[in-house]
């Protein structure tokens, strides 16, 4: 049983990992065929992965409905939302636009999904402003440097800010857009490059650990 439960899965990760890695560096017909097959397979496997989210969402709201738990009435709307997309999709055969204009699916996208998804993230704008007011403290030299960089970026990205800059600092001869370009191309590159190199080393080590079966937390417990 251990063989099926543990050793074969670990062998799969090792074999696909090593072969995929090797095929990157050894371009010949066999490796191309191998990677092409794996590409198609991976594409299909991943197309099932989202079912994990779907099933757990439906399970939890179905249970709420069944038990009439607190706020169970709202759970109905999870299913309403789901079918408000899936039924029009079925009716329209998956097409969103025809020569005649929007299909029912296109309509659902434009007026339901677009409005909901867009607003969910737009709300964050309010929180970033109140956080800026309440928590942006210039207490140390480091915080001051962060503030100066942020200040220049926020000011210089809008025309009104550029006008203010020109009025106050125009005599220096450096436009705020030049300063922003410099920040983005020099010190920010240095900071980000350090992070990038650091992360890449970490990622390579983790990937090797996965291939060689040292890191196997994703497999869960026995």
């Amino acid at each position, binding site marked *: 049983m251990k063989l099926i439960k543990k050793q074969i899965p670990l062998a799969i990760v090792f074999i696909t990992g090593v072969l995929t890695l090797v095929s990157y560096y050894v371009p010949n017909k066999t490796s*191309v065929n191998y*990677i*092409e097959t*794996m*590409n*198609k397979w*991976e*594409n299909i*496997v*991943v*197309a099932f*992965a*989202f079912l994990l989210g779907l099933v757990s969402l439906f399970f939890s709201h179905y249970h709420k409905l069944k038990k009439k738990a607190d706020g169970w009435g709202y759970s109905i709307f999870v299913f309403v939302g789901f079918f408000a997309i899936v039924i029009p999709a079925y009716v329209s055969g998956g*097409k*969103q*636009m025809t020569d005649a204009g929007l299909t029912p699916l*296109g309509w659902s*996208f*434009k007026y339901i*999904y*677009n*409005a909901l*998804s*867009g607003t*969910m*993230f737009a709300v964050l*704008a*309010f929180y*970033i*402003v*109140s956080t*800026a*007011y*309440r928590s*942006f*403290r*210039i207490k140390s030299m480091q915080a001051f440097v962060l*503030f100066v960089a942020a*200040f220049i970026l*926020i*000011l210089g*990205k*809008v*025309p*009104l*800010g*550029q*006008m203010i800059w020109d009025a106050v600092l125009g005599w220096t001869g450096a*436009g*705020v*857009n030049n300063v*922003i*370009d410099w920040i*983005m*191309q020099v010190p*920010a*590159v240095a900071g*980000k*490059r350090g992070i*990038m190199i650091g992360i890449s080393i970490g990622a390579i080590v983790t990937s090797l650990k996965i291939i060689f079966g040292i890191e196997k937390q994703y497999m869960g417990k026995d």
Partner: protein
Amino acid sequence: MFKEKLQKFFKIDRRWIFLLLAITLFVPIIKPLGLPNKTIAEATSRVYENIEKLPPGSFVLFSFDYDPSTRPELHPMAFALVRHAFSRNLRVGVVTYIAGSTGLIEELFAKVSKEYNKTDGKDYVILPYMPNILAVLTQMSSDLYGIYTKDRNGTPLQDMPVLKGVKNYKDMSLIVCVTGTAILDYWVAFVGDKYSVPVAGGVTAISQPGYGPYLQTNQLKGLIGGMKGAAEYESLIKQPGKGTSGIDALNLAHLLVLVLILTSNIILLIVKYF
């Protein structure tokens, strides 16, 4: 007494701040300030020049990977890029790896293809959504028909005029990925670097600073960043759109944040030292 008042002001109910932001952002929409974007970042003009220099008929691949949650920043960029490509009579292919972007792509082409009198299948092709980007990007290096056989409406790709002579990256002149995710990183790592195809990008302002290193090494041939970038590109192609009006609306809100940060820090200084 004065100190207490200040402290009270500092601890103001945050909903007043919410209201203030709502007003400073909504009023310019009703009554635009009329302050257009004037400056153009170097990275944005690099994207423009890379498209501008292509001979008519070249094949450009757009990877539009954004959904409604980042639409206001990225949709105007995608519009401007496609308009630019169509005005230069380039052949356009579109791929996507984000499920939510399919509706936006339809919306874009329904509008822009009419402006330039372009036909689906002849001048452009929209390929269907695919869930696993790595697999598709790797596959397209040898034979894109190994994974894409039909367009998003089920029309077979074989013999489609727009794809004539296009089999893999070697046949593409430029790839531009517009996204609010890490998908641009994949294009750089798995396609640009490996097969030496020029890759450029359009990203949200949030991720823009992170691409500095790739721009410096020329792994990225150019980058459009956020609403400002969209406005810049619109002014480069001389077709103001939602990016231009957007940046106009942001004017007051940007100043509001700066004023708020300064106010709270000055209050705290006064409370501390006086």
